[in-house]
């Protein structure tokens, strides 16, 4: 047996991989940082160099001081928390309904035949076009906002979940069956764990879309939230507040994305990633 050969083969390969990865990581972070610095630099040149009027492009310092003053008087947090709550509630409902439905679609041809056409139909309806109906049915209550976010994400998410689940390697499922797993065990022990990283990715993408629809919901009939804040600022030509709102949405998005990536790494450390071999 070539056991020693096996061992020699495996150990240094792992160590080498690790070293390379940290080096690449620093390079990756540096590059992302440079991009931000570049954009902020351009912004500085355009505003401090008076290339663009203050009313169209506020200076970085003006936006920062606006952010600080809003943070100080509590309005920033009030708007942020209102928006985050709406996104989370609407999106979580969408996940709760889409996850079992998508999994069922992937595994039952009959259910798929029953539900897929209507979902494909609904998926192409622009959410903005549904706003009048939601207002008519639900008024300007919070539930109307959740509904808009739900409608915007649900139909996409169901199809994504169905797709992710049906892409689980059939050979893995066959192996489990020949190892004696019954239908339920195949689901619990193979399909679900195998699909999990893909599902987390689906969730990460749809929560991004949820933010888009949030602004749609808040621009129509709301008295709080970042979308509302941006819309109201337009009326008063308060571009600094608009910029502050945009920056907050971007930052929240960045943090959300980052949280999902961490979850993915914790839940599925076994995954072979493209970035590992880059």
């Amino acid at each position: 047996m070539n056991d020693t050969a096996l061992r020699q083969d495996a150990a240094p390969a792992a160590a080498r991989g690790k070293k390379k990865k940290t080096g690449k990581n620093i390079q990756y972070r540096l590059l992302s940082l440079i991009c931000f610095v570049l954009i902020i630099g351009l912004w500085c040149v355009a505003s401090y160099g008076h290339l663009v009027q203050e009313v169209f492009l506020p200076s970085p310092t003006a936006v920062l001081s606006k952010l600080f003053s809003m943070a100080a008087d509590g309005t920033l947090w009030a708007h942020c928390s209102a928006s985050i709550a709406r996104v989370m509630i609407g999106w979580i409902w969408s996940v709760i309904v889409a996850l079992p439905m998508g999994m069922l679609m992937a595994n039952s041809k009959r259910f798929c035949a029953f539900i897929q056409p209507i979902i494909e139909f609904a998926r192409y309806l622009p959410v903005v076009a549904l706003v009048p109906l939601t207002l008519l049915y639900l008024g300007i209550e919070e539930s109307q906002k959740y509904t808009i976010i739900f409608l915007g994400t649900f139909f996409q998410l169901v199809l994504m979940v169905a797709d992710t689940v049906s892409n689980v390697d059939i050979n893995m499922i066959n192996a489990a069956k020949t190892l004696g797993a019954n239908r339920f065990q195949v689901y619990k022990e193979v399909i679900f764990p195998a699909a999990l990283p893909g599902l987390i990715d689906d969730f990460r993408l749809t929560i991004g879309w949820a933010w888009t629809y949030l602004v749609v919901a808040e621009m129509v009939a709301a008295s709080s939230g970042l979308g509302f804040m941006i819309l109201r600022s337009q009326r008063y030509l308060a571009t600094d507040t608009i910029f502050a709102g945009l920056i907050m949405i971007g930052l929240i998005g960045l943090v959300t994305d980052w949280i999902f990536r961490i979850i993915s790494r914790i839940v599925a450390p076994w995954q072979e990633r493209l970035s590992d071999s880059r």
Partner: protein
Amino acid sequence: MKTGSSDRPVRLKVDHLGKVFGEGEQAVCALQVVNLEIRQSEFVMIVGPSGCGKTTLINIIGGLEQQTSGDVLLDGHMISGAGADRGMVFQGYSLFPWLTVLKNVEFGLKMKGIPAQHRERTARKYIRLVGLEGFENALPKQLSGGMKQRVAIARTLANEPEILLMDEPFGALDAQTRVVMQELLADIRRKTDTTILFITHDIDEAVLLGDRVYVMSRRPGSVREVLEVNLPGERSHNSLVLPEFLEIKKKIMDMLWRESNDAAMGR
């Protein structure tokens, strides 16, 4: 073949098995009247040109596909669906990437509801058998192809199946690793007395490992000939140059050559 193996009970019997894919005008006959028998502790090889329905045959025996006609009997009982009594090893390893080597090997035992402690003891025994001690806590992504296939073999054996079905298990490995794996399998077979049905398109592999070789015809697949393999001494890479080995190899090569020649001539 070992003396007296024909007295041993028949474990697996494939009786007039046929498989047609599709219906009506699009129907394609993949298997036509396949008969074969495997006795206790026998190592039976099926060799045939690509597309002859070898994989379809083993999938039907494994219960992953449904035949159109005929029966598959294990110890006299008709099989229905996949089950732990027929362990399978696939070309693509099919390990569960989120489980460590140990947990992969324990998988079948866990499905049976065997308690964790007992499970681990059995799994460790088979990990030792395939020469992977020290890798119990490694994840599949850290292993080479040969090592992955060792895990897959241990995982199937730990389940103690009545028969081991292997579908071109070494097909994806490089030539050197393949020889090492073939010797490993011959060794496992000596130690465990497992009954094995093995599919390959590699004639050397078929003659080196098998007690008996079924040569299949091209599509629609059926058994063209059955050859007994009697090689002196223990099977190892040294067997590859024995005159007895070369004689059987030549016979099979001629048969397969005629098959592909017929195919090329459109007969």
